[in-house]
């Protein structure tokens, strides 16, 4: 009798305990990620999934310091041409393969040599990889590269199981195997991505949920409704206009972090025939456009003050921001006189292409209204994304409203846009002095030297204004009260170490 009672109690307890255990954290995403292969992946939202699934050599703190993850220590040689890293011991991939220097070498080889790999330019400086011993690896560089560690903190540094990718080749993304806190279970396109807790994770103690389900929900209103209805536990990219409502809601919490990227207007200065117009040829007109815009008002009106006005590729809070050029106040008079100087005292007509999504359109309509007061008449061309990209890259545009999601290393926000053969230099801006300064900044590991180079480049760029920076998005997460321990990071990633889900 007593025994059965004990057994019954134990069972009940056990059942209750396991019921408490089976915790699934449901995260609402803005988009459906692309292929789940870090080497082939190219979207921001894909990185959010990797943050839970794939560990990297190093990680960052919210203050953008580089900290160990799969690598516990590293050392640069004096000439900056060799990086030796010590690897963490006792780490295994989700399929049981051991993590060691061989695995790292295989990964770097794949990232550099797989034809479909998008990581080639990120690891372009690595000319040789040497397996010193099981847990030490040495990279030889062709030239000093200040950005390398930051690259290792992103997809280029994500370690995939060599067993898995040797077997699957380019199909690795259909069944990814990494070494992060959660392992891949299933993915149904545009429906869900499910990950399960990896029992043998080296930092398993920091993980408190049993599974993670990512649910893409493109419409912000719907995403928030799902959170409120209890069908989500947290979501990313809350609309700025919903902030007040979430703050007023007792059952929800909000976290935010200013992003690493920017939004602005890229102007075609030399990319084909599209640049043959006053806006593209005369920097005074570009400066006038920039002066006619009240960035603070845009932030207030369109984003309820939640974002950060900006005038440089880095937000004003960034250590790389050049304080010599603060965010300018609107100055219609100065804009008008610049236009007059350039010969357009009666005003000028320009066209700006915009992606046809409501927020960007709304923002540009405010810009349009502001610019018209200074005599700059903007015709907005809303284009469907594919067409916009095609036109931009071919130079079929005068000005284009585009943004950039941002990179940890400042080089990532500026080099490929502003250098003469930069990969994403759609404005075809070219200035040898700027090239020299940006390359200098890239190859020095001395922060002071780099800052000086960027500042010197800014002196030129603020005059030439090939890109008019407008604002920096703030990543805003909304969470159910039951989710505790979430730390916001400026790279927009959701790191689940330390996050708990109350019942």
């Amino acid at each position: 009798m007593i025994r059965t009672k004990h057994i019954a109690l134990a069972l009940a307890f056990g059942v209750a305990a396991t019921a408490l255990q089976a915790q699934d954290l449901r995260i609402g995403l803005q988009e459906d990620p692309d292929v789940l292969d870090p080497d082939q992946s190219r979207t921001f939202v894909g990185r959010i999934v990797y943050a839970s699934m794939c560990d990297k050599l190093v990680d960052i703190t919210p203050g953008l310091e580089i900290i160990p993850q799969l690598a516990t220590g590293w050392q640069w040689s004096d000439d900056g041409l060799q990086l030796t890293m010590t690897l963490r011991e006792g780490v295994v991939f989700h399929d049981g393969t051991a993590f060691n220097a061989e695995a790292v070498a295989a990964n770097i080889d794949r990232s550099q040599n797989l034809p479909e790999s998008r990581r080639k330019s990120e690891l372009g400086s690595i000319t040789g990889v040497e397996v010193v011993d099981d847990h030490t690896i040495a990279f030889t560089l062709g030239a000093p590269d200040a950005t390398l560690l930051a690259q290792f903190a992103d997809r280029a540094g994500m370690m995939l199981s060599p067993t898995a990718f040797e077997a699957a080749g380019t199909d690795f993304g259909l069944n990814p195997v990494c070494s992060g806190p959660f392992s891949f279970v299933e993915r149904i396109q545009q429906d869900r991505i499910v990950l399960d807790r990896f029992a043998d994770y080296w930092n398993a103690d920091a993980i408190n949920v049993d599974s993670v389900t990512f649910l893409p929900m493109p419409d912000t209103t719907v995403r928030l409704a799902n959170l409120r209805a209890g069908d989500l536990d947290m979501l990313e990219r809350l609309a700025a206009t919903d902030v007040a409502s979430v703050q007023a809601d007792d059952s929800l919490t909000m976290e935010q972090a200013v992003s690493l990227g920017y939004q602005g207007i890229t102007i075609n200065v030399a990319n084909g025939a599209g640049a043959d117009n006053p806006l593209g040829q005369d920097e005074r007109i570009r400066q006038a456009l920039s002066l006619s815009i009240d960035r603070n008002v845009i932030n207030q009106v369109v984003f309820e003050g939640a974002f950060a006005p900006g005038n440089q590729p880095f937000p004003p809070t960034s250590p790389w921001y050049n304080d010599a050029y603060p965010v300018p106040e609107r100055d219609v008079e100065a804009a008008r006189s610049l236009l007059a100087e350039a010969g357009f005292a009666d005003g000028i007509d320009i066209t700006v292409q915009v992606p046809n999504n409501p927020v960007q359109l709304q923002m540009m309509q405010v810009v349009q209204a502001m610019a018209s007061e200074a005599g700059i008449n903007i015709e907005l061309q809303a284009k469907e994304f594919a067409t916009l990209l095609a036109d931009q890259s071919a130079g079929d545009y005068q000005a284009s409203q585009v943004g950039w999601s941002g990179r940890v290393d400042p080089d990532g926000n500026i080099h490929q846009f502003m250098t003469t053969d930069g990969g994403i230099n759609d404005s075809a801006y070219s200035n040898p002095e700027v090239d020299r300064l940006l390359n200098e900044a890239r190859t020095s590991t001395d922060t002071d030297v780099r800052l000086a180079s960027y500042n010197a480049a800014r002196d030129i760029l603020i005059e030439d204004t090939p890109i008019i920076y407008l604002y920096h998005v703030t990543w805003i997460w909304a969470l159910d009260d039951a989710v505790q321990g979430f730390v916001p990071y400026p790279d927009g990633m959701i790191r689940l170490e330390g996050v708990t889900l109350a019942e």
Partner: protein
Amino acid sequence: MLAFIGRRILIAIPTIILISVFVFTLQHLLPGDPILVLAGEERDPEVLEFLREKYRLNDPIPVQYLAWVGNALQGDLGISLRTNQPVLELIGEKLPVTLQLATMALIIAMVIGIPAGVLSAYKKGTWIDWVANIVALSGLSVPNFWLGIMMILLVSVQLGWLPASGYQPFADDPLQSIKTMLMPAFVLGTAIAATLMRHTRSAMLSVLKSDYIRTARAKGLAERVVLVKHALRNALVPIVTVTTLIFGELLAGAVLTEQIFTIPGFGKLVVDAVFNRDYAVVQGIVLCTGIAFIFMNLLADVAQRILNPRMRDK
């Protein structure tokens, strides 16, 4: 009848070819480069060119089309450029979802619409007619995405009666499956119910005035029998036509409803694929829906002939 069906199936083949050529050409003529779109933020020109070669996107359009046909005949519909997933697998994933949504929506529409139409025609001019019309038109005059959001806010957020999103395969958990699909099916169904109701009403009105009905009534048949067995049956021609067309449309996917309720069906997949220039996905789905439409049309024509034997070939 069998000969008729057989002929139609034969003719279906050139039709499908026509559809696939049309959509293929249209897509490839669209401005925009899929590799560039899918490149997102990583635009390494070497890699992009490699991918264009790999997926034969530099080949002339007819060559690409023939390659697609060749593969399709072997059961390979290509892969999604975005996620590398085989298109056939994608279709297999989404088809049951769309089928379930379409069926549920149509059932709701028929259950509401046809009786309402019959009643409204029968009681023409009375307040019943008025009310039925206004209710039906309400279902029609509110955009799907709007009604959907309102329903989520009311039913899921405020009342907590039904989940706001998610999909459960019917085979796994029928009850939960229906719960997740109920709101989207309702949203879709009410809009269609209006169409069905109006067509039913109109057709019934025409028929009720005919001598045939007068005769039936004169014979002393019960009103209900007159209504259903005689009037409705004859009014069915336009109703059947419209219903099969609507079902075909539903099968093509209800994009906005799927987006609002996060139902992973065809509609959303196709629209995203067109925006992303994910050619193979669009091609595969259009092939599917094309076959579905042809089948639905055939069904409609067969039904017509059964209902009105005089409409067979002269």
